[in-house]
C-alpha cells in the first residue's frame, strides 16, 4: 500500500471519529468525496423539492377563497422559495454551482420529492398539502437539524420553524372544511383520499430497499430510517384525522397495542417507482414549468449581468 492510500485511510478514520463524537463538519474541513457527493445530491434534491413545491400551491394562489387565505398562501409559497434559497446556498458550500444543480433538475438527472408530481385539484388540497405534505416534511427534517454537516443542519433549523407553521395552517384549513357544510366535508375527505398514500411515499423506499440509508446513518446525515419516520408520521396523523372526523383511506389501518403504533396497509411501490421515474401525473408539467421559467428569464439575467459590468467599468474609469 502506498503512502497516499495510508494517508487517505487515516483521514477517513479521523473523519468518522469526528462524526462519532458529534462534531459538526464544516465547509473547509476535509471530507470523503462520497460524503460530499451524497450531501450535494441530498441537499440539492431538497432545494429542488422546495422550488418545485411552489407550483402545486401556486396553482391556487389566484383562486384562494378569501383575502386572508390568499395572503397566507402567498406567504407560505414565499417561505418555500426562501427555503430553496438557503438550501442552494448550503449546496454551494460544498463546491457545487447552483445553476448546474438546477440544470440537473431540468434534464431529469436530479430528483425532487415525488409528492409534487400530484395535481392540486381542489381548494381542499391546500389544506391537505399543508397538513400531510408539510407534516411529513417536518418528520423528515427535524432529525436533519442534527445532521453532521453544519450548513445543512443550520438551514434546517430555520426551515423547520416555518414548516411547522405551514403544517398548522394546512390542518386549520382542512379542519374547517371537515366541520363545514356537507360539500366542504366531501372536499376534505376526497382530498385526504388522494394525498394519503403519496404522503406515505414521501419517506422513500422501505428500509430493505433503500440503497443510501445505511451509509447515511453512519455519517449522521440521516438520523432515522425511512420506515421509522413513516411510522412516526402515521402515528401522529391518524388521531388528527379522527379528531376532525375524516377517514384514512386504508382498510388495513389498525392500532397495534404491542408496538404502541398503527399497522398500516402495503404501499403501492409500483406507483412510487413510476412517479420517481417521471411517470407521475404532473412530472412533465412541473419540470417544464421550471425549465420555462429559467429559459424565459435568460434575457433578464443577462441584462442584470451586463448592467452590473457596465457599472463596474464606469467606476473603474
Amino acid at each position, binding site marked *: 500500500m502506498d503512502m497516499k492510500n495510508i494517508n487517505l485511510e487515516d483521514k477517513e478514520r479521523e473523519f468518522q471519529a469526528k462524526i462519532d463524537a458529534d462534531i459538526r463538519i464544516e465547509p473547509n474541513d476535509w471530507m470523503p468525496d462520497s460524503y460530499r457527493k451524497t450531501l450535494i445530491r441530498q441537499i440539492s434534491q431538497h432545494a429542488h423539492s422546495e422550488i418545485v413545491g411552489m407550483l402545486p400551491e401556486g396553482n391556487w394562489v389566484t383562486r384562494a377563497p378569501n*383575502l386572508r387565505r390568499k395572503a397566507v398562501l402567498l406567504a407560505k409559497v414565499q417561505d418555500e422559495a426562501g427555503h430553496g434559497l438557503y438550501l442552494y446556498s448550503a449546496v454551494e458550500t460544498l463546491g457545487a454551482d447552483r445553476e448546474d444543480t438546477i440544470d440537473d433538475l431540468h434534464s431529469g438527472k436530479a430528483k425532487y420529492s415525488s409528492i409534487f408530481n400530484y395535481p392540486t385539484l381542489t381548494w381542499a388540497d391546500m389544506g391537505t398539502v399543508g397538513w400531510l405534505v408539510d407534516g411529513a416534511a417536518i418528520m423528515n427534517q427535524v432529525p436533519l437539524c442534527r445532521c453532521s454537516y453544519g450548513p445543512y443542519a443550520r438551514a434546517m433549523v430555520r426551515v423547520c420553524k416555518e414548516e411547522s407553521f405551514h403544517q398548522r395552517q394546512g390542518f386549520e384549513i382542512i379542519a374547517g372544511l371537515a366541520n363545514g357544510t356537507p360539500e366542504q366535508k366531501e372536499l376534505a375527505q376526497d382530498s385526504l383520499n388522494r394525498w394519503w398514500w403519496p404522503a406515505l411515499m414521501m419517506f422513500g423506499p422501505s428500509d430493505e430497499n433503500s440503497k443510501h440509508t445505511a451509509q447515511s446513518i453512519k455519517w449522521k446525515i440521516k438520523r432515522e430510517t425511512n420506515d421509522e419516520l413513516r411510522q412516526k408520521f402515521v402515528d401522529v396523523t391518524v388521531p388528527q384525522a379522527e379528531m376532525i372526523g375524516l377517514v384514512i383511506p386504508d382498510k388495513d389501518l389498525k392500532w397495534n397495542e404491542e408496538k404502541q403504533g398503527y399497522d398500516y396497509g402495503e404501499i403501492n411501490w409500483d406507483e412510487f417507482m413510476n412517479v420517481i421515474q417521471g411517470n407521475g401525473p404532473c412530472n412533465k408539467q412541473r419540470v417544464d414549468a421550471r425549465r420555462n421559467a429559467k429559459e424565459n428569464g435568460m434575457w*433578464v439575467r443577462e*441584462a442584470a449581468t451586463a448592467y452590473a459590468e457596465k457599472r463596474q467599468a464606469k467606476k473603474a474609469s
Partner: protein
Amino acid sequence: MEINKQDALFEFVLRIADDSLILGHRISEWCGHGPILEEDIALTNIALDFVGQATNFYDYAAKVEGKCRTADDLAFLRFEREYKNVLLVEQPNGHFGDTIARQFFFDVFRKLFFEELAKSTDEELAGIAEKSLLETKYHLRHSSEWMIRLGDGTEESHAKIQESVDTLWRYTGELFFSNEVDALLLNEKIGVDIAALKRPWEKQVREILGEATIEIPAHAWQQAGGRTGVHSEHLGYLLTELQYMQRAYPGMEW
C-alpha cells in the same frame, strides 16, 4: 349629480382597494415562474403587500358603506362593472419587462398618492396610507432598479423594455383621473389633489427612464375607463379566477 360625502368616501376607498387587489392578483400569477429565484421571492412579497393593502382598504370601505358587507364581499362578490381599478393594473403580466414597467408606472404614482393621503384629516385613511407608503417605497426602488437594469442592460433587454413602455404608456394617463368624488373629498381635506400629482410623476418617470436610456413614447393618446367601471377585456377573466370559489360555493366560510 349630487353625491354625498359617505358615498364619495366609499367610492374613493374602493378605487384604492381595487387597484391594490387587481395588481396584487396579477403579480401573484408569477408565483413559481420568476426569472430567478430571488425575483420569485421579491414578486411574491410584493403581491402579498398588495393583498394586505387591499384588505385594509376594503375593511375601511365596508365600514364606510355601513351595509354589513365585509372586505371579502367587496373583493370577491361584485360584478365586473363595479370594479374601479385603473386599466393599467389589470393588464396581463406579459414578460418580466412588461410586469416591471407596469409596476414602475404604478409605484411612482402610488408613492406620491400615499404621501398626500397620509396627510388626510380622516385618521383611519391616513393611517393605512402611511403604513402602505413604507411598502410602496420598497416597491418603487425594486421596479426602478429593474427599469434601469433592463433599459441599460443588453440590446435585447433594451428593446424589450422599450416595447413594454410603448405599450403601457397609454394607460398611465388614467392614474390622474378625478371627478366629483375627488373634488368633494379634497374640499373636506380627506382626499388627494390627484391632478397635481401628474407633474411630479412625469418628472420622476423621466428621470428613471433617462437613466435607463428608454424613450418616452411620442403618441399622446391615453386610454381610460377603469375608474368608471369600463374595463379592458382582461378583467373579466381575472375576476372569473379570483371569484371562482365564492361563486361556486356561495356563502361558505373557508
